């Protein structure tokens, strides 16, 4: 059935659904049944494909626009369906499965080296907004000190792209080649926010999760910790940072 509804050759199915049944080793009676109900079989094909494709059209409108311009969107979708990577029964997992398939297959990235970054940026805020709720970490405090580690909120993501994929649109889907650093986080009210970071701040936020703030700042040639502490307080207030932990 998966082959019948997901495989590329729609014309062959429309012409003779019985052949699809024969390929699956079904009996002559079953083949005839498929043949007699070709319209119903095509309805299933349309419904199942729509269920899998609609979330991609909703979640990746800019990627779709880019690929449609080159007449490759349908090819991309078919390659995704052929890979059979949708395992989860949760509808919201279809778009992340597509992103994972782009990573593993490398589809289209020889022609569009920014394609994976673009797709990731398109669902970044949704991934953060819907990150599973969890109990806050324990043993943290609110005021950052030079000897502390930074503890990000579980939903927060710090990402670095080689292209400015956060500035594209459906009308203009090709990003500039420009290193870009973002922090995506969820506010107290549960809404996703995106903020651009300098390269040094992005590096500091990554490093200071594993080594003391002052040490991380020093290694990044940030001699003055005062503005860093102000930024960290702001990010804590806004929900991106869960708190600060004494380094042991």
């Amino acid at each position, binding site marked *: *059935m*998966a082959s019948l*509804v*997901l495989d590329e050759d729609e014309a062959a199915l429309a012409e003779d659904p019985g052949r699809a*049944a024969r390929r699956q080793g*079904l*009996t002559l*009676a*079953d083949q*005839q*049944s*498929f043949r007699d*109900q070709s*319209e*119903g*079989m095509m*309805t*299933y094909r349309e*419904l*199942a494909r729509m*269920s*899998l494709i609609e979330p991609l059209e909703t979640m990746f409108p800019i990627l779709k626009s880019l690929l449609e311009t080159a007449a490759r969107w349908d090819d991309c979708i078919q390659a995704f369906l052929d890979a*059979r*990577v*949708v*395992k*989860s*029964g*949760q*509808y*919201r997992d*279809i778009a992340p499965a597509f992103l994972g398939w782009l990573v593993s297959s490398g589809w289209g990235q020889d022609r569009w080296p920014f394609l994976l970054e673009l797709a990731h940026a398109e669902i970044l805020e949704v991934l953060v*907004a*819907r*990150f*599973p*709720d*969890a109990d806050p970490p324990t043993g943290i405090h609110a005021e950052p000190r030079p000897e502390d580690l930074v503890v990000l909120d579980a*939903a927060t993501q710090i990402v670095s792209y080689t292209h400015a994929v956060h500035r594209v649109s459906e009308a203009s889907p090709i990003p500039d080649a420009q290193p870009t650093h973002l922090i995506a986080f*969820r506010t107290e*009210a*549960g*809404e*996703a926010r995106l903020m651009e970071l300098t390269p040094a701040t992005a590096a500091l936020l990554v490093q200071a999760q594993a080594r003391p703030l002052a040490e991380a700042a020093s290694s990044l040639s940030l001699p003055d910790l005062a503005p860093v502490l102000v930024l960290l307080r702001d990010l804590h207030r806004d929900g991106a940072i869960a708190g600060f932990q004494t380094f042991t």
Partner: protein
Amino acid sequence: MTQDRYTGVGLGLRRPHLELVAQMEGHGVPFWETCPENVIGDGGNHHRLACAILDRDPVLTHGLTISVGGFDAWDEDYLHDLGDFLIRTETPWHSEHLCFTSVDANCLHELLPLPFTREAMRHTIARVRELQARLPVPLLLENITYYAELGAAEMDEADFITGVLEGADVGWLLDVNNVYVNALNFGFDPKEWLARMPLDRVAQLHIAGHKKFGAITVDTHGAEVIDPVIELMQWTLRRLGRPVPVLLERDNHIPDLEILLAERARLQRAYDGAMTVSGVRHV
């Protein structure tokens, strides 16, 4: 006790309405139905709103993607989470569709019909019993719409459903719109069909809208319920002679909450009318 708490016409709880519903205490909806797949493992603002409503109001749960008649292994992690969710919501039962949804561990996100064969029936009965054993509340199975019989049939749909319900000894979530749509697509009388069925197993009804595409009518859940389906709901309720809960489903072209509440109120009047005629008292 269950019948006292779950009567009348409830609504499917949908994401676009969460904010408004969370703010409304006097919404008049006797119960909500929620899809566990949409809540379990989710997070953020909408998730918190959904949980607040589910903790506040009576809830029934209705699954979308457990492949009841399929061959794939159960997702034990999900079933564990589902069990916790069912206990948390205090739902009196949990429903799934009598169909398969996955093949070779690939989820197709579509309700696919089981072959109407003795082998498929035996297999499905065994699977339903396994699933029931993993759930903390009684399981109901819902009859689906189907657009083609999957292979050469050895029996008709009515006999297949009856065989599975009785063989697995589970309750029935009777979707009257699905019966109506199947009757249109396969040319039978829905009341004659229902009269053959084990109505004593019905614990809940579903009702929804549909749409015709070419020669086939599809259960879209994307339009208002039409009068003949409402009449079929009333006929069924009178035949049942007891006030089982009815759930209005709307999953596509979801209108403003106000419009959906008005449709629910219209269905509630039809429900009350059917109950009055059959002389059934309900709270």
